């Protein structure tokens, strides 16, 4: 320290000190002052900006979702659907049932196949719905758990029952009662999606695979078993295998199902958890057996007779895809008329013949037999009584349950 006491410094040293303060590295230049004050402002302002963000509650008050209806002035609707979920003509250029609807009602349908995945689709429409804006869609088709969430958040519009005579009369009893939409006030099912066990008989060397227990324990299937990334299907089927009802289970049951599957993961019995991509793996034989959606199985069988399916004795889970009118949609009435149209028996039969999923319309069998008698006998499209009796649906979850369960499931599937 001593050498810096000014009176002991020579003139040259003093000059050097002065220089270092004004033009050396320690100099307080304009730039360093700006930089320092900038950092200070950022630190102080940053905290303010950060706390100003926040995400407002997504939930809307009941009854506020209904928007002004422009149906009578604008004869049109925009319909968002999954791919391969609408009948098309041989050349793939027209959609017969939709065109017949437009011809009859004068309502033009803008049909888009922009739903590939429930979680992604929710991510896409969520910002608009949360902000109370029109998504530009009058009718969307989402799986029941997402439909339940959208209704729970108050993001769906109530349907006018007087516009739904066919839907009301023809909805089959299996789909009438759902705990997330009592009385079907907001939604009507487009299809039922049974989750079954599919196997490639070449890969299993002719062995039948018909239970979740076998999927998880049969050593001959080791490393070639697939489960679905759709939590309700995978857990639901496992719950049934454990003797629990997916429609009425507790946290402990859920954990037991997770534990059961975790064992399968740990001993490398389970190869992957898949979305739609299991179909190619199964056809190639990379997956010997897996949980599968019935409609896919029918389509796979058409190309590859070695693909077989089995309904577990313990029962199976049926999910549904449901038509909803999102909040702020401009053409609720037109959309409702389209829902009702697809519950007319000849129309429903035409659709069912094309898309190969369980038809939620009661009494469609006779009409379907006129188009294709083989399909009308297929229990994966028109469930017989024995088949319907084994069907279970996954109960709806509260927001907290949903987060907690999805978290555990995400950990199981390694994501």
């Amino acid at each position: 320290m001593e050498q810096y006491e000014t009176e002991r410094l020579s003139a040259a040293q003093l000059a050097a000190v002065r220089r270092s303060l004004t033009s050396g590295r320690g100099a307080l230049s304009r730039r360093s002052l700006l930089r320092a004050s900038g950092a200070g402002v950022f630190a102080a302002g940053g905290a303010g900006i950060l706390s100003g963000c926040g995400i407002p509650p997504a939930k809307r008050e009941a009854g506020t979702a209904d928007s002004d209806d422009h149906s009578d002035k604008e004869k049109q609707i925009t319909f968002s659907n999954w791919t391969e979920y609408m009948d098309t003509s041989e050349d793939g250029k027209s959609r017969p049932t939709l065109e017949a609807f437009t011809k009859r009602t004068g309502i033009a349908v803008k049909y888009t196949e922009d739903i590939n995945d429930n979680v992604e689709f929710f991510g896409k429409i969520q910002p608009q719905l949360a902000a109370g804006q029109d998504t530009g869609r009058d009718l969307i088709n989402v799986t029941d758990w997402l439909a339940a969430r959208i209704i729970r958040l108050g993001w769906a519009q109530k349907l006018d029952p007087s516009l739904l005579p066919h839907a009301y009369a023809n909805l089959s009893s299996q789909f009438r009662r759902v705990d997330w939409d009592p009385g079907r006030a907001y939604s009507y099912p487009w299809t039922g999606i049974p989750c079954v066990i599919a196997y490639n008989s070449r890969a299993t060397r002719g062995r039948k695979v018909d239970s979740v227990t076998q999927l998880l324990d049969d050593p001959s299937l080791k490393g070639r078993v697939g489960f679905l990334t759709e939590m309700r299907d995978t857990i639901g089927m496992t719950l049934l295998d454990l003797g629990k009802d997916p429609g009425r289970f507790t946290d402990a049951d859920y954990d037991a199902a997770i534990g059961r599957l975790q064992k399968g993961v740990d001993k490398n019995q389970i190869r992957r958890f898949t979305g739609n991509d299991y179909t190619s793996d199964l056809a190639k034989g990379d997956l010997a057996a897996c949980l599968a959606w019935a409609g896919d199985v029918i389509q796979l069988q058409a190309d590859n007779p070695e693909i077989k399916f089995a309904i577990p004795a313990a029962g199976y889970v049926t999910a549904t895809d449901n038509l909803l009118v999102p909040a702020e949609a401009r053409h609720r009435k037109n959309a409702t008329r389209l829902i009702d149209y697809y519950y007319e028996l000849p129309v429903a039969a035409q659709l069912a013949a094309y898309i190969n999923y369980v038809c939620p319309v009661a009494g469609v069998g006779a009409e379907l037999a006129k188009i294709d008698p083989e399909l009308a006998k297929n229990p994966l499209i028109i469930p017989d009584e024995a088949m319907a009796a084994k069907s279970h649906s996954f109960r709806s979850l509260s927001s907290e349950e949903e987060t907690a369960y999805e978290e555990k499931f995400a950990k199981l599937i390694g994501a």
Partner: protein
Amino acid sequence: MTVTEAPPTSPAPARPPVHRTSVRRRLVPYWLLLPGVLWLVVFFVLPLVYQASTSVQTGSLEQGFEVTWHFATYWDALTEYYPQFLRSLLYAGTATALCLLLGYPLAYLIAFKAGRWRNLLLVLVIAPFFTSFLIRTLAWKTILADGGPVVEVLNTVGVLDVTSWLGMTAGDRVLATPLAVVTGLTYNFLPFMILPLYTSLERIDPRLHEAAGDLYAKPSTTFRKVTFPLSMPGVVSGTLLTFIPASGDYVNAQLLGSTDTRMIGNVIQSQFLRVLDYPTAAALSFILMAVVLITVTVYIRRAGTEDLV
């Protein structure tokens, strides 16, 4: 200076225009910067601030999220998901090393030996980009299918026994194992390694090689003392361009991997879309960013290159 030295009799109005043009001229760089800065502010800074805010919020989708300065989210996320972080760094690091091993000879060949084939080879390097990332990754599912020719050969030769022992494969399959994920990453990011390597190799004056030869350096010595040091900028930028995106990638792990190969990108995706736990997802993104930044900084310091081009 010329203005002040002008005789006082010079017309007064002459001054302001000179002054104005110089101001305008000084503003030119800022105007040129403006589009880029605006772009970065809107698409980088704002989302970053928004994510930073999200990471310290608590709440649920239904109740909304509020900033509560809940920094514990970071700690929870780190303790919960550190295996996925380590795995991401390991896979990305391995893929980067493989890219360098595969890419360097190829870039060398294109730069020095290809002659008139040079442009064609460069186009071939970029050609995979003409198809979508997803399609290219899905193609690997067919290439590596169980019982397919590739797996059969690897199995017969005994390579799979070695990788199995290393924990990279399981039994006699490659798909749904770490090896498949690393292979996919290596394939998808290889061009990002080759192109910078090529640019820096191509700049090396061939006369330097001749000079080294004149000084009795063996070809291997020439490579070690001349070529490789001069290509360092390419090596550094190539490894960065490979490592950074690879460590955040989730497509390869999802399509080619299994439950035990999930990378941090998969966790972030599932926290955002599936669990709807936005704070954890945002915190994980920030941690990933920090980890990559630190790794890269240390690496650049070690590699000791000033210019990365």
